[in-house]
């Protein structure tokens, strides 16, 4: 059994053990959940230490037969891209657990159920990034929806059940389209090389153009809903508003990355020709997402809605970088996924604390927090600045790489995308001004600053944002080889090289 499988199975084991703790002992449940998720994070760092950066093939592989009748294997393995996303997930979960210590108290069900769901979700998040068998990936991809559905519907606020259903139906719809495509790929593999779900083997299939286009679309729409790309995005703001801040962090920070990860791993690697055909369309959608998300964010009165729409804009950048088909764009997008995860986590967690203290999520209800709660205000400020990609903070590097990478092939798209940065300054700075600066709004005078637990939870996130802004090399070293390989395998070479001739 490889270390990877162990890392993935650990949360599930934790969930089973938590189940044995008596319902009333909520503190023990929480502490145990924190312990398990921290252990997983530590174990996943060992995964990163043991990872050999010099090779681009899958590492920590394991393959066991699962459903022999269809040649389905429990096959896992990681390359640079999946490793960083797994790290993102495993590091965020304990932070979320610690940061949202009281989030589960007012839920529809017990505290225990909340942490069982979180831990099951963590296993599935690791699984979805680690799966090297298409069928296994699909199983994680779909089954992951169920814990999230219950997390939103059971512990969220206001319109939680409607939002949970909207989320689930959108995702299921996309998933089922993907299922049709998976069946198609499986049958074609059966006709050509013997039925298989193994990704490396599936990448060698020769599919005629029309079929490939349809199969590609099945995958792409599923991922575009997940990511979410305009016009498939409408579930996200609702879900983010209704979910608890912790769930939102996992939803936007990790789960949505499955969409962009899927675009790289499945759309481009399995259907390079169709990807080429659809690239202009996808780049257009991405640019629309960037601008649309930014404008919608500017207009938001609700703090959670604001973060949700900024994410739509950021996912536009990520998608643009992926389909620019240059190594810089690809690396930039991969890095962006990580950075966006941490920036959004910081924004959502701090916003969550603000909202819990003020009992409101309306931006105009806050004001002058800088004076009342300086630590909280400063952290929010840094997270916000990272969101608008200020140089020196994490998102800048990735946004720059994406834009450079896109410019070499699609200059117009890159230039319009740059507008998104300017708009970002608006949608971040205006709410920051309203919430943090100016006179103290009535009702905020007694607000308490972050306590020790909250400080401990947010410190690593802020640290990562700052460090990654100045020194992204360790992560880029993991990402670059794989990104290059993806672009090369898809049949592209960087246009920059041609200019040099």
């Amino acid at each position, binding site marked *: 059994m490889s270390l990877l499988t162990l890392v993935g199975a650990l949360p599930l084991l934790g969930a089973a053990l938590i189940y044995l703790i008596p319902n009333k002992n909520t503190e023990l449940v929480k502490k145990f959940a924190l312990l398990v998720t921290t252990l997983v994070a530590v174990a996943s760092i060992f995964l990163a230490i043991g990872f050999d950066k010099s090779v681009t093939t899958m590492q920590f592989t394991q393959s066991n037969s699962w459903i022999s*009748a269809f040649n389905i294997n429990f096959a896992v393995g990681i390359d640079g891209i999946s490793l960083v996303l797994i790290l993102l997930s495993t590091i965020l979960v304990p932070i979320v657990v610690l940061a949202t210590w009281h989030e589960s108290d007012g839920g*529809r069900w017990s505290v225990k159920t909340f942490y069982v769901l979180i831990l099951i979700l963590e296993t599935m998040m690791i699984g979805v990034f680690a799966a090297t068998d298409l069928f296994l990936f699909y199983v994680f991809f*779909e089954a992951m929806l169920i814990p999230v559905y219950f997390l939103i*519907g059971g512990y969220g606020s206001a319109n939680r059940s409607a939002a949970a*259903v909207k989320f689930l139906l959108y995702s*299921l719809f996309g998933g*089922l389209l993907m299922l049709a495509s998976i069946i198609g790929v*499986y049958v074609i593999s059966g006709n050509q090389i013997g039925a298989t779900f193994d990704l490396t083997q599936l990448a060698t299939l020769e599919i005629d153009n029309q079929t490939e286009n349809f199969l590609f679309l099945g995958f792409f729409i599923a991922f575009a809903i997940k990511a979410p790309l305009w016009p498939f995005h409408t579930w996200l703001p609702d879900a983010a508003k209704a979910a608890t801040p912790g769930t939102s962090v996992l939803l936007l920070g990790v789960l949505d990355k499955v969409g962009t990860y899927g675009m790289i791993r499945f759309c481009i690697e399995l259907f390079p020709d169709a990807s080429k055909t659809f690239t202009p369309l996808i780049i257009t959608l991405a640019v629309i997402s960037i601008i649309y998300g930014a404008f919608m964010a500017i207009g938001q009165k609700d703090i959670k809605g604001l973060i949700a729409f900024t994410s739509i804009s950021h996912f536009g950048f990520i998608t643009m970088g992926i389909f620019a088909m240059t190594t810089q764009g690809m690396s930039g997008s991969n890095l962006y996924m990580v950075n966006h995860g941490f920036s959004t986590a910081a924004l959502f967690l701090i916003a969550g604390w603000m909202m819990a203290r003020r009992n409101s999520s309306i931006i105009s209800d806050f004001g002058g927090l800088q004076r009342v709660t300086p630590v909280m205000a400063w952290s929010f400020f840094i997270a916000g600045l990272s969101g608008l990609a200020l140089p020196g903070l994490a998102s800048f590097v990735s946004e720059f790489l994406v834009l450079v990478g896109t410019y070499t092939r699609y200059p117009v798209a890159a230039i319009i995308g740059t507008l998104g940065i300017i708009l970002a300054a608006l949608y971040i700075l205006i709410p920051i001004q309203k919430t943090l600066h100016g006179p103290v709004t009535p009702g905020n005078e007694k607000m308490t600053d972050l306590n020790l637990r909250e400080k401990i939870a947010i410190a690593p996130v802020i640290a990562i944002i700052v460090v990654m802004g100045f020194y992204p090399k360790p992560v880029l070293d993991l990402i670059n080889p794989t990104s290059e390989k993806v672009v090369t395998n898809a049949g592209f070479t960087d246009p920059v090289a041609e200019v040099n001739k």
Partner: protein
Amino acid sequence: MLTAPSLGYLLLSPMIIVFAAAVIGVLVEAFMGKTHRAAAQLTISIGALLLALVQLWRIRDLSSTTAAVNSVTIDKAGIFLQATVVILALIAVLLIADQENFTAQASAVPGSNEEAVALLQKNQQTEIFPLFLFAVGGMMLFPVATDLITLFVALEVFSLPLYLLAGLSRRRRLLSQEAALKYFLLGAYASAFFLFGAAFLYGYAGTISLVGISAAAGSANEVFLLIGIIFVSIGLLFKISAVPFHSWTPDVYQGAPTPITAFMAACTKVAAFGALLRIFYIGFAEAQTMWQPIITVIAILTMVLGSVVAIAQRDVKRMLAYSSIAHAGFLLSGVVALSKDGLAASLFYLMAYGLTTLAAFGIIGLVRDSTGEVTDLNRWVGLGKKSPLVGSVFAFLLLSFAGIPLTSGFIGKFAIFSAAYQSGNIAIVVSGVLASAIAAFFYIRVIIMIFFTDPVNDSVSVIIPSVKSKISISVATVASMVFGLAPSLLLTTATNFATFIK
């Protein structure tokens, strides 16, 4: 002089055991005192089914087309289907054993004095058991019958007891009797269509055997063959409740006593699909260009209509009825596939679906208020809060119906759609996944009602199930769960058993 036909008693023994037990059940009903009658009947039923299962295991590697003078073919797929019927029936009989669901005396007029007295004196008749066994016997015969007359006989043998059973509900008897009458009248029409088609096929081929019809294909005016195929199909499509022959399903599912609905929904589907598969794979395979487009259209209509109409349902039994219509559509794609993979997928699907259905109806039988079962979904709100276990199990079963990964429903759907895709019926696959997306909506809506809505005052409670129901529901649920997580065993078995012989 007539010579006695030679019969393969060993091969026929599973059916003979069940039929014999049914006859014994009738005698017990007539001669035994009421104190121990119910226990005796239950013992006979379970014993006969177990014995039949053992016999099926013993003959698992045998096959013959002449077990009963060319009219019954025992082959791998036939044995698998029979075993499926018997296993599902074993689980169903434990639900049926909760006598409390059935009227004490079927002959008493609803609301009459006689009825009240019978109830008061606990004068419970137990004719449900022999009727049930006759139905099971017919269901075992149906998928192995290989000539049109035997098919018709089998069809009637399992249908007639079902008509009666549907009318035996203790509560809301008029609704139950109405359902039975409707089922009987429409069923009789369908049988007539079947016979009509059989006559045409005989006229066309000069034989009633499926093999003979297959051999004769293309030899004469094909219009008669087409008419024959269409009318025979109507008779069968009625039984599997395919659109547009589905209208009886919601009424009968709703009106019949819940354990009977469970039995009917699970086992009739197996038997009828078994026969349908055999008829199309053996009898009509040569004429596939004729019927494939028709069945494809019907399959698509069935899955889409079943899924869409289910959304509007407010009664959980009616909702599951429409869901069973949608599933019939999914299963038809296995018929259209016309390949070994399609057959194997259908066999898996039938077993998985049957188990899930039994468990789901078993749970419906537990949700009650003071007057009896409550099937109005609006009163199910907050069930998950009152009884988390029952709520969670029901939610799991619904997710399995919806075909979410890690459930047996998903594996079945994947298997059957990939078989359909392989045979080039991509339209069915695309419609299938879209219909599944629609279907997901109403399954999830029920989950919302159970979990995300607070209980109201007049909502219902879950009774403590009897040991028999407990065993039945848990076995079906666990089996359904196992076939979702580790489907290999059943899938491999289904693939090994997926052969019809001519």
